[in-house]
């Protein structure tokens, strides 16, 4: 029975993730050093895992309230206030989700009417455009450029705003480019959002991972922005808790309430032991986060220096754990580079176009991998370049 005609059109036409395709290729190779992952190499700090075990031991295996455990919501609001300078009410303005991915989906579905335009900077996280499509919105990419360290400029944003623009999605520090935004740049963007009545989804999942003493500014903390921002954050990156699948959204009560309607029918609540672990992470995790952050910083220093030595131009990002070097010097496309490097040297990185068309000419390398592995990977990339240039 041909089932294709039964698939909803907007889902049928959705492209498969470029990462997924590349993953299938990598899976066939053995002994690969991977710079292709999007998660920490550290296991979750023991005290956090132990809190999850404690939770199970004590029979905390039931549903929580739809919004999530009140204690966790209180901890989150305290944390967000301390670290980002934005105050939210734990009773009505925060919702615990299954990772930030769910929160993005909720926010878009809660706000988008068919045909509404959602702006986002590109290269960007793989789920942004598909999530917009699945919410029946129109995804409008704003290309960012290596010459500007992949920052989103107010000028580039202004060019893409139309009367149908409704939402702007931001992700700084950025996966895959490592780009960050300064306060001054964010202020200009905020002004545009206010002038054009845009809602901002700000995905700040990498905000703890900033380097060289760089200041992380949340756009939600700027004057007039709290009321038009959905602040998205989670535990996966800073606390190395990807498998716990736990994130959250903070937003004014009216928006949270709308997101909550979808969440309660689709998900009910995030898993209970993960919520217990998340409380432990917020209350006692600062030291572990700082140790990991320092380690990433060291690796970043190394990998950026090594790439530039090889003649593959790469700015030194001050956030996330990715670099996005330009590989056009090799004379190859992103895909040829990634496939060749994998086949010949068993090093995996992700071709830039997996993160949007403007990623062509680049690859994403994740340095959330041990320094020893990074060193071997860089040697092999050097050999690979020597061979393709000959």
């Amino acid at each position: 029975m041909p089932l294709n005609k039964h698939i909803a059109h907007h889902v049928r036409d959705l492209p498969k993730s470029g990462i997924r395709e590349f993953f299938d290729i990598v899976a066939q190779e053995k002994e690969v050093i991977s710079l292709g992952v999007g998660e920490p190499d550290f296991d979750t700090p023991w005290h956090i895992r132990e809190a999850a075990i404690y939770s199970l031991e004590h029979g905390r295996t039931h549903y929580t309230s739809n919004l999530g455990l009140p204690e966790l919501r209180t901890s989150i609001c305290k944390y967000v206030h301390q670290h980002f300078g934005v105050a939210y009410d734990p009773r009505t303005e925060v919702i615990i989700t299954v990772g930030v991915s769910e929160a993005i989906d909720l926010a878009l579905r809660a706000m988008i009417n068919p045909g509404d335009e959602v702006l986002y900077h590109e290269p960007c996280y793989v789920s942004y455009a598909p999530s917009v499509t699945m919410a029946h919105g129109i995804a409008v990419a704003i290309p960012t450029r290596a010459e500007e360290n992949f920052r989103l400029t107010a000028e580039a944003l202004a060019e893409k705003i139309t009367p149908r623009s409704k939402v702007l999605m931001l992700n700084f520090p950025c996966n895959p480019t490592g780009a960050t935004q300064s306060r001054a740049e964010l202020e200009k963007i905020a002004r545009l959002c206010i002038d054009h009545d845009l809602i901002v989804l700000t995905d700040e999942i990498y905000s703890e991972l900033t380097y060289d003493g760089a200041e992380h500014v949340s756009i939600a903390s700027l004057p007039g922005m709290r009321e038009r921002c959905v602040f998205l954050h989670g535990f996966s990156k800073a606390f190395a808790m990807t498998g716990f699948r736990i994130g959250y959204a903070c937003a004014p009560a009216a928006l949270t309430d709308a997101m909550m309607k979808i969440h309660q029918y689709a998900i009910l609540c995030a898993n209970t032991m993960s919520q217990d672990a998340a409380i432990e992470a917020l209350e006692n995790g600062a030291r572990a986060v700082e140790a990991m952050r320092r380690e990433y910083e060291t690796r970043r220093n190394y990998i950026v220096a090594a790439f530039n030595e090889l003649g593959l131009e790469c700015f030194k990002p001050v956030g996330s754990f990715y670099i996005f070097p330009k590989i056009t010097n090799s004379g190859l496309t992103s895909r040829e580079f990634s496939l060749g490097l994998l086949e010949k040297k068993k090093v995996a990185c992700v071709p830039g176009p997996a993160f949007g068309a403007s990623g062509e000419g680049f690859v994403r390398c994740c340095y959330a991998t041990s320094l020893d592995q990074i060193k071997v990977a860089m040697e092999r990339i050097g050999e690979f370049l020597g061979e393709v240039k000959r």
Partner: protein
Amino acid sequence: MDPLIILLRRNARTSVEDLAKELSLTPAVVAERLTQLEADGIVLGYQPIVDQQKVQAGLVTAVVEVRITPERGGGFDRLAGRIANFAEVQSCYLISGGYDLLVVVEGNTLQDIAAFISEKLSTIKGVISTATRFRLKTYKENGVSLLREAKPQRLAVTP
């Protein structure tokens, strides 16, 4: 802590060139700082972390809790120094609580250590008592876990 010390504590064999890259410094500056750390007596040495259980005829280790009589002008220092000087003593700390010195002793056999405690350590004038506890098994050594846990696998490529 000095970032250079943090990196050395993780792997003291990292080359000066690599240390320089990791710290965004030049190799010359790193080499100079290393020399300074050694000259200042901050970095005292570089040693491997060995799993003694895997070394044939590995060492026997005991921790000895020692009570000593403090003295006018110097407290515990003179006696502690005297104990620390023995080659058998690997580490020696002044401890708060129910006893005074925590002494880590190494020997080739249990008898070696027993002999050292009864003939050398306990007989020093000023040593009031000793309590010796032998190591049976190592679970973690200098921050390195020896537990053979299955290493969880990350997928090779993820978003």
